[in-house]
């Protein structure tokens, strides 16, 4: 109860940004849940895109501007379009999948719920520290600062990630290519 009271007390002192955090957080979780529960795959995709926009909002709040933009471009823009494309392409409609039996679903939700409770109760006790006003640097999330780190310390993984893209490219072409005799969809 005590914890809850301090929570309420702090809640009253929030500014707009603080309320935004709670609001956005709630919406994010709701839309994430609807990703998982939506019957129609297209609804799922749309909910996911919406989730990503919410997360972008969070990143903005945290002053991680570069990643906020990248999130829109890469995730909501590229990745989700790819998903949408695939779903349209494969012509998946509502109720296309038979629902799993209720037993397995229940089991899944229970196991997941227990895991969540366990993790949350651990994290509730876990001291994570907080920001240090003296050394805080508001420019951390700006492209300038990130660029310097990325191209100095992280140059090697950055370069090697290109290998990953090569593999993915070759693989996607190889697997996705229509062979002679395959159906056109």
């Amino acid at each position, binding site marked *: 109860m005590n914890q809850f009271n301090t929570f309420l007390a702090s809640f009253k002192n929030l500014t707009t940004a603080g309320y935004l955090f709670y609001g956005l957080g709630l919406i994010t979780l709701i839309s994430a849940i609807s990703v998982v529960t939506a019957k129609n795959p297209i609804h799922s995709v749309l909910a996911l895109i919406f989730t990503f926009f919410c997360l972008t909002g969070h990143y903005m709040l945290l002053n991680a501007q570069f990643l906020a933009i990248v999130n829109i471009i890469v995730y909501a823009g590229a990745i989700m379009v790819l998903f949408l494309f695939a779903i349209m392409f494969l012509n998946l409609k509502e109720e296309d999948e038979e629902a799993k039996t209720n037993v397995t679903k229940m089991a899944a939700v229970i196991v997941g719920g227990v895991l969540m409770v366990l993790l949350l109760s651990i994290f509730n006790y876990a001291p994570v520290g907080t920001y240090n006003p003296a050394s805080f640097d508001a420019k951390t999330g700006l492209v300038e600062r990130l660029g310097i780190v990325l191209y100095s*310390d992280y140059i090697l993984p950055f370069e090697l990630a290109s290998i990953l893209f090569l*593999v993915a490219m070759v693989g996607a072409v190889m697997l996705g290519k229509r*062979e002679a005799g395959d159906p056109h969809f």
Partner: protein
Amino acid sequence: MTFQTYDCLQMLPIILLSLSGIALLFLGFQKSRALLLPATLLFLVIAFVANFLDWGKTYMYFRDMLLVNNLAMIFTGVVLLSTFMVVSLSGSLADDEDAQPAEYYAILLFSLVGAIMMIGFENLIMLFVGVEILSVAMYILTGSDKRNLRSNEAALKYFLMGAFATGILLFGIALLYGATGSFVLSGIGNYAHSATNAGGSMLLFYVGMFMLLIGMLFKVSAAPFHFWTPDVYDGAPSLFTAYMSTVVKTAGFAALLRILSVSFSGVYDFWWVAMAVVTVLTLLIGNITAVYQASFKRMMAYSSISHAGYLLIGLVGLSQASKPAIAFYSLAYSLSTIAAFGVLMLVARNRPLNAAVFGDQTTLARTDEHYDAFNGLARKNPLLGFVMAVSMLSLAGIPLTAGFWGKFMVFSAAADRGAVWLLVVAVLMSAVGIYYYFRVVIAMYFREGQTDTIRVAPFYRIVLIAATVLTLALGLLPNLFQGLI
């Protein structure tokens, strides 16, 4: 940020492998496929030589990203050697209409870059990118037999579960970062040491460590995160199963060894029990389920799980001795596994399976990989029989083969820690292992069967013989290899 020349020079294997992968893709434009295999092998040999150029030195590259020392070079050498052998068993790809060898070889070489990153990583980002390169390559190769539903199913299973495991791994990394503020292994290790001494709450760190380890344990197919292994190994084309069960496993254990010994050795007391439980489960499930397999290939999948269990014993008994032990074990295991798959591919190729067995056409399993396929093999093909027998003996850990010493070293590492109960389980399970490995030997030597003489390409033959000779040589003189470390 200045590049020193040596920085680039010692990255040679990675650079060479990347370039040669690209070169192979271009070679693939040619009509003739004859050049691909020799070119790949040549690239691998060059990379192998380049890898050992810096023998005896220790370097940390690119601002604490990649560590190269003798142990890393050994692991890299094992991985390159395994790849060399796997690739040299792939001669039949050139004749296969559906196959795209240029792409396969390029992906194999690229994936090796991932393996090398996992072997020498100092920063978790390198681990992550390395794991992903290797995994994505494996998803693709698993599904490379596009018309075969078994291959398709395996690819999807591997992909979905692998991506899921990556999520867990990342969650662990994030929590570790939250607890320690660092992605660098030694930084995490320092935190673990100092925080344990300070007595502060390390919950975040522990959960992160758990998640990270679970993600890695998935990749090396330790129970209870092994479920993908049998299905994927079974469904993937044998060539790539051989690759997965050796290279991926070696790299995975090198990575686990690295992170456990550098970052988590300070909190050994916290994780060793959980790790021991995983080990026992892995040994039990791998060995016991293998007994009841009718398909040799699937048995090999379970066998690879059980070997993950033996390797885990070396990790549970983490000490200075476990490094050479795990390296040696990986080498011994890789040699025998590849030789066994080499024989399997030859045997299976000669026994196309009737599609009717599996019903509809898309489920077409191309070849028969059951134990029965080996009946009477040794009679007409004494060489193949001998190669297979030696690999089975080595996998079973019979003395005077390399596998025995692998087990011996791993076990004695655990015995030093006093984990006797673990040893009891392990020794009992290795007895169970003998049962199913010997089934093949008995089928080959004592059963009657109608096998013809199988034609073996000269180079294929040389590789098989070399693997066998090496297995026996290491069994006789284990110090040959050990002296290196």
